[in-house]
């Protein structure tokens, strides 16, 4: 386009948008909080890496166990993942069912009571669950585990022989499941409650039964919430220290046998048990295992994010 008349460059004052003081303060503090979280995270990462380096560079003889670092940490990673996975597999379906019961099936007064109980359970310290696991669940599950071995012994998971004390990987998994159940339930319940009435009615008006309505409207809407809740629970299970430390006497072994007496320990439990007696490179080794746990947690969360984002278009948030 030709511009025949060049309009004189009138002094255009730098047009800064007018912003209220309160808005500026709020924006600043919100940004500050966001940045702070990143700084803390970076600080933790830097600390872990810096302290772990000596363990990576040390010769194998100096390390606890006298072999290479991967051999030391490997079984711990395995134990951590296995126990958390068992817990997640047990807890997630149960938590979703409980949350659905509270939100869509229970009479209102019962639902309120149940909601409080679930919130309360989430606040119970993990050491209490650990004590319950070792004092109640372990002996009580002995007959059950014996039967598992008798009937399902051909599956490597239940090959046995059954631990005499009942302190097995399976008991740890169940204990962790009970521990993370409340948090997954609480998150799922909140999301289910937010299912738009509109969508529930749309399903009902098409002639859906309550269960069909839940499948059509509630579960798809709550999907990302369920995943978030499960990830929160998984994070707790991965990092759980006391419950695992109390129940398992770990030996650096890698086995899928869930009911025998020799089990791998978990990273967090191992750190808690070994730290008081460790010096020098041993401490760095423990911190290196902590770094591995940090990375695992980060990976797990990224995968969860990715799953949630994959079908963002269909999330109902637009």
């Amino acid at each position, binding site marked *: 386009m030709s511009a025949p008349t060049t309009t004189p460059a009138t002094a255009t004052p730098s047009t800064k948008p007018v912003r209220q003081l309160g808005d500026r303060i709020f924006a600043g503090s919100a940004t500050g909080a966001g940045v702070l979280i990143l700084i803390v995270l970076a600080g933790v990462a830097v600390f872990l890496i810096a302290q772990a380096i000596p363990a990576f560079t040390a010769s194998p003889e100096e390390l606890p166990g006298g072999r290479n670092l991967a051999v030391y940490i490997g079984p711990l990673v395995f134990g951590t993942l296995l126990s958390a996975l068992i817990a997640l597999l047990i807890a997630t379906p149960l938590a979703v069912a409980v949350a659905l019961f509270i939100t869509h099936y229970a009479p*209102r007064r019962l639902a309120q009571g149940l909601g409080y109980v679930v919130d309360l359970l989430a606040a119970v310290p993990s050491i209490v669950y650990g004590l319950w696991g070792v004092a109640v669940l372990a002996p009580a599950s002995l007959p059950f585990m014996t039967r598992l071995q008798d009937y399902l012994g051909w599956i490597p998971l239940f090959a046995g022989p059954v631990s005499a004390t009942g302190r097995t990987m399976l008991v740890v998994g169940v204990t962790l499941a009970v521990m993370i159940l409340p948090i997954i339930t609480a998150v799922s319940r909140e999301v289910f409650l937010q299912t*738009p009435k*509109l*969508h*529930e*009615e*749309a*399903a*009902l*008006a*098409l*002639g*859906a*039964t309550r269960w*069909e309505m839940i499948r*059509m*409207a509630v579960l*798809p*809407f709550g*999907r990302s919430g369920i995943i978030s809740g499960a990830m929160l629970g998984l994070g707790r299970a991965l990092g759980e220290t006391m419950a695992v430390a109390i129940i398992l006497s770990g030996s650096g072994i890698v086995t899928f046998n869930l009911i025998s007496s020799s089990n791998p320990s978990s990273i967090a439990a191992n750190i808690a048990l070994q730290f008081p007696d460790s010096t020098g490179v041993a401490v760095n080794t423990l911190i290196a295992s902590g770094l591995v746990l940090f990375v695992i947690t980060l990976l797990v969360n990224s995968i969860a994010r990715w799953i949630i984002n994959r*079908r963002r*278009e*269909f*999330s*109902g*948030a*637009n």
Partner: protein
Amino acid sequence: MSKAVTAKNLNIYYGSFLAVEGVDMEIKPKTVTALIGPSGCGKSTFLRSINRMHEVIPGARVEGKLELDGRDLYGSGVDPVGVRRQIGMVFQRPNPFPTMSIYENVIAGQRLNNKRAGKKATDELVERSLRGANLWNEVKDRLDKPGSSLSGGQQQRLCIARAIAVQPDVLLMDEPCSALDPISTLAIEDLINELKTDYTIVIVTHNMQQAARVSDFTGFFNIEGTGKPGHLVEMDETKTIFSQPKQKATEDYVSGRFG
């Protein structure tokens, strides 16, 4: 397809609160019946009682009779789920399932009925329903996109397509245009005119011009005061209601001197 709805001395309660009292109404097959009246007069409640959707609210119940071609909709042993499969509903705000594609939205009802149709038959059903809702040409190239990607008017027509895909006997519409712009409203009104060749349609509307444009019969609901039950004042052919109603209240309402 296309059945008559008859209400005989129908009372609708929420718990102990009588919301709508003594409705006698005859809705003929293949007609459009508009329900008008001030807010809170019970017209939506009555509409929702036709497919038993008001029972979603705990404590809701009815007394009296409501029949679909002579069959009692509230008889013992009648499953509300079955009633809703026969009597479709379109809501005030468009509510396609956000987690489903346009295609899946249309066949949502079909899936519920557990009818296992082949890919070809399902494709045909989707096309027929979307054509029936005057939406086919606008969405045929993006059937796999989420229903929420459409405009409000298109979403509402998608909901109509979803409702007619299961070939209901009656189609209920609860203020289907109140969230739409005038052009989308016109599209829906045209659609209602076409749909009445196949379906019995009952529409609740706040817009009296709309009632006059689309309906064959009009029922006027009114309420004496807050806390009182709503009731059907009179029902007649639409042109009678708007030109020479028998009741003074109706005349006041349709001429805008009231409510």
